[in-house]
């Protein structure tokens, strides 16, 4: 009797083959399937990005993951798990700014793992992890029904440690053993054609679920604790918009007016250089974090208890528009009117417009915000 052919798993990586191999070897994926490693292309890579599988392109819409594992299904790639690794000091915005990537996976029903230091010594100072990231992960998990776990990168007295064989990866100990178990569970479910949403009921992940919840609820996560946030009655905001921008209430969508309160996230870009006039890091990731901690009550951005408003102080519509014009001038394959050399890139634009290839600031703020307030303009709809 012939044995069934091994299935193929691909470990996609962000130009870090060493990390991909570390994961494949540490989790024993090679015993369950044939394993290949491939680099992810940036959305601005006009040759590489259009050639990525559509399922991967969709996941990269908001931001780029460090690792995505896919299972080959007759040429189509089923994403099985997405992972993010961070070695920066773990306080405040450093973990939050990566939250968009986790959202991009969880919103598509793909489990996520996020590895970051619990503490890190830098410049003689010890920085410790802000526990609210676990609360946001818990919310992400509750809303999308797939495992979304945080793990601590093993350290010794605040100095993060690395695998000896794979020096860009963590050592194979501590929380990493739980990460390996999550990856193995995700792969096993996919190989058995079981929905990944059933993983939240997987008995062997119960302790991880409990641990994530314990860490997430260890400290209260409240709007008042964040300087950038304010919660205001929507009616008051509408009056102010009429006064300051001449905006009529009738212009605003029903879903916006229907929410009694609005959460405003304000950041001041006035000190930024012109090139960074509307930069995304860390604010876009923080916006996704605030969305899940305080606004989101369902899987889509329409399902919110509060409107999510981003106020970009010091930014004019002209500067925001420049982001699009930069894309149009440099990369839009239709601009010259000549047949482009890269046909898949053209085809991607015919099918999706500039959905993936326009600047990240346009994609992330546009996707997440119910309203964007600039110095001279209000974007809504």
């Amino acid at each position, binding site marked *: 009797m012939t044995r069934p052919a091994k299935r193929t798993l691909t470990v996609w*990586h*962000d130009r*870090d083959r060493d990390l991909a191999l570390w994961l494949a070897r540490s989790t024993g994926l090679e015993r369950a399937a044939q394993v290949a490693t491939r680099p992810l292309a940036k959305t601005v890579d006009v040759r590489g990005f259009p050639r990525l599988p559509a399922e991967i392109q969709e996941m990269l819409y908001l931001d780029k993951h*460090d690792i995505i594992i896919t299972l080959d299904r007759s040429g189509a790639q089923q994403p099985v798990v997405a992972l993010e*690794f961070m070695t920066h000091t773990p306080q405040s915005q450093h973990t939050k700014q990566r939250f968009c990537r986790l959202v991009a996976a969880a919103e598509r029903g793909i489990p996520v793992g996020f590895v970051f230091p619990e503490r890190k010594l830098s410049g003689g100072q010890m920085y410790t992890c802000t526990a609210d990231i676990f609360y946001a992960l818990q919310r992400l998990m509750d809303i999308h029904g797939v495992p979304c776990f945080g793990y601590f990168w093993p350290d010794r007295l605040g100095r993060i440690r690395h695998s*000896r064989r794979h020096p860009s990866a963590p050592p194979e100990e501590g929380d990493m053993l739980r990460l390996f178990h999550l990856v193995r569970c995700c792969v096993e479910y996919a190989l058995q054609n079981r929905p990944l949403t059933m993983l939240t009921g997987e008995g062997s992940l119960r302790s991880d679920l409990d641990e994530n919840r314990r860490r997430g609820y260890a400290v209260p996560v409240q709007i008042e604790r964040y300087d950038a946030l304010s919660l205001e009655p929507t009616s008051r905001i509408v009056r102010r918009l009429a006064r300051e921008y001449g905006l009529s209430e009738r212009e605003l969508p029903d879903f916006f007016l229907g929410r009694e309160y609005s959460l405003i996230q304000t950041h001041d870009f006035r000190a930024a250089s012109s090139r960074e006039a509307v930069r995304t890091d860390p604010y876009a990731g923080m916006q996704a974090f605030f969305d899940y901690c305080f606004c989101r009550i369902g899987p889509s951005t329409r399902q919110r208890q509060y409107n999510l408003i981003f106020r970009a102080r010091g930014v004019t519509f002209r500067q925001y528009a420049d982001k699009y014009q930069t894309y149009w001038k440099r990369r839009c394959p239709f601009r010259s009117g000549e047949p482009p050399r890269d046909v898949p890139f053209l085809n991607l634009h015919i099918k999706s417009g500039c959905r993936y290839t326009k600047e990240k600031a346009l994609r992330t703020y546009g996707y997440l915000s119910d309203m964007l307030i600039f110095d001279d303009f209000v974007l809504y709809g």
Partner: protein
Amino acid sequence: MISEDDVLFAVKEFLLERGWEIVAYRSPGGHGGLVIRPDSGPHEGDLFVLDLVAVKDKAAICLEAKSAADRRDQEKLDLLFSEPSCRAALQSAVRNAASESEAARACRLPLSLVKAVAFASGDIAPEDYVVFRVSPEGDVEVRHGAAVSCLAAEL
């Protein structure tokens, strides 16, 4: 064409097989590497990051990798090795990185730092460098100038 990530990975595997320990590593898409911040001199406050540092016995290889040979890598390493405050910061950073590794004993030794570059195409061949050339298949060829011939047995 072979990518920078593949060049670096091939050299890392090559060194591990010969008993070197990697104490700092930064792939193009990753974090890490050896961070060097001179705290005085003309480059005070500047930030330099090396792609790979490998330690064996009393030697530490400080390496920059690219897909194609790049003279800017050589200029960066020359600066770090020659400018006194940069060199002091480099030595301190290498000692710190080595102290976190299994080669902890090395940090108490007077480490001899060696400049190295790696690439897959083009060429640069400075006398005081170890040069790793990576083929499209991932094979590594090593060359070294007379100034670093003492390392020949280790490579």
